[in-house]
């Protein structure tokens, strides 16, 4: 973590001294992160830990000041467009446009990312089948289930062939089957392309199962960092990440969050107004 100069170019994301406050509420409080190229890196923490704010700092939605963020060696503050070009982003909310068909949703992002017209159709088709929505592509997204919407958004994020995929709670509000469906697609694409994945979650088991390395976040800080095995090694054998979290923070992780409710109300609004 201290070696900044030599290894920066092999990192997909480097954060140093990241801090952000909303009014007096410090959401991110001095976060340092290194995400290596090609890995699946998890930001794990309860609601309010500062995961989304960290993501928004990395994705140029919030000014990364004070502190510093680099994406593939590019300073986010100075190379905003180049950074955005490298990123596929899936926000925490279910954000596909319910009034459009699946294909139209993906096409919009293909256009916004300048996928050349000649390749566009093929590219859109490709990602739609990669997420298992080829058959539903011409239905409007308002008829989709939660899992399908999430996979559609995955297709939107993937259509630009990003080197870095940033997923903010990709499985929020999904049942276990749909959750596995989403992860299966992510892992397939990753194996095929070698893209880096930065994912937030408040599900212990998900981080354990899918992430190469995990940063435990709590109250705006990274409390612990390492592979799931590393994090568990300090504790008695067979310890769950849940127990790891409690050991590092003294708090419980799975407090009933309001994330699920958020997502559902978003969907309802989307259906009504979209």
């Amino acid at each position, binding site marked *: 973590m201290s070696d900044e100069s030599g290894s920066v170019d092999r990192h997909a994301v480097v954060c140093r001294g990241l801090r952000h406050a909303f009014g007096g509420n410090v959401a991110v409080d001095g976060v340092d992160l290194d995400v290596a190229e090609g890995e699946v890196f998890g930001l794990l923490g309860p609601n309010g830990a500062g995961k989304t704010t960290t993501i928004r700092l990395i*994705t140029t939605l919030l000014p990364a000041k004070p502190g510093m963020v680099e994406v593939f060696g590019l300073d986010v503050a100075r190379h905003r467009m180049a950074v955005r070009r490298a990123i596929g982003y899936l926000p925490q909310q279910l*954000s596909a446009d319910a*009034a*459009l068909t699946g294909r139209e949703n993906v096409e919009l992002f293909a256009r*916004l*990312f*300048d996928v050349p017209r000649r390749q566009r159709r093929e590219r859109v088709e490709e990602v739609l089948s990669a997420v298992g929505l080829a058959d539903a592509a011409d239905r409007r997204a308002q008829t989709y289930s939660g899992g399908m919407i999430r996979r559609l958004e995955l297709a939107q994020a993937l259509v630009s062939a990003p080197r870095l995929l940033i997923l903010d709670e990709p499985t929020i509000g999904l049942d276990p089957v749909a959750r596995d469906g989403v992860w299966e697609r992510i892992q397939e694409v990753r194996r095929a392309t070698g893209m880096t994945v930065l994912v937030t979650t408040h599900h212990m088991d998900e981080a354990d199962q899918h992430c190469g390395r995990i940063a435990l976040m709590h109250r705006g800080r990274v409390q612990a960092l390492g592979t799931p095995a590393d994090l568990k090694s300090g504790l008695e054998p067979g310890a769950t990440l849940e127990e790891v979290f409690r050991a590092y923070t003294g708090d419980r992780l799975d407090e009933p969050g309001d994330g699920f409710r958020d997502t559902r109300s978003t969907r309802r609004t989307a259906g009504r107004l979209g």
Partner: protein
Amino acid sequence: MLARVAAMCVVELQKMRHDRTEIYTRAIQPALWLLIFGETFSRIRAIPTGRVPYLDYLAPGILAQSTLFIAIFYGIQIIWERDAGVLAKLLVTPTPRAALVTGKAFAAGVRSLAQAVAIMVLSAVLGVALTVNPLRWLGVVVVVMLGTAFFSCLSMTIAGLAMSRDRLMGIGQAITMPLFFGSNALYPVGIMPEWLRVISHVNPLSYEVDALRDLLIGTPGHLLLDVAVLIVAAAAGITAASALLGRLVR
């Protein structure tokens, strides 16, 4: 830039194709203005419009009004997109803020055009002597697009300041009627009290109406000045709204 703007317009067309009911329901209000207000005031000849029949005089005004009414609440869509995470996703694409706003503004214009068709068909049925010159119709398209672009940017600017749907609704409602009645849409500037003339003079809606009247029914206006004002207004609106767009997702 142009491709991005086109992409946003394509989306708007796709939405309109999927759900046409909105176009029909939105055409009801201008239709009522033409049918009830227009027919009544034609009969009582209360408004001096020279040799132009009042209904002919009114039709371009109602067309301009419909663009105002469509556009002034367009910012609600931006706020909804903010709440739904759509805006964040758009802002993480390599699209300049100004291109997003311009795209949205012209997408609103596309919607206006669909409604303009309905109003023009009704006007023709009611016997308004509309132009048959295709160049003038092209001009109408441009003016409707520019007018809608300005008012939708005004709405997005208010959205960026108000930050919430309710406040935007309130402000929108508060300014719609003054913009409408403080224009030459219903009556000539000549019969306005002095203070209202001043408002009408700085009101982009008046320039839109003036241009549409010139193009559609041949009332001599100040076409070049009108279009210039609308272009400047739209550009200013795009600038203001893009500057505030990032603020919405903070």
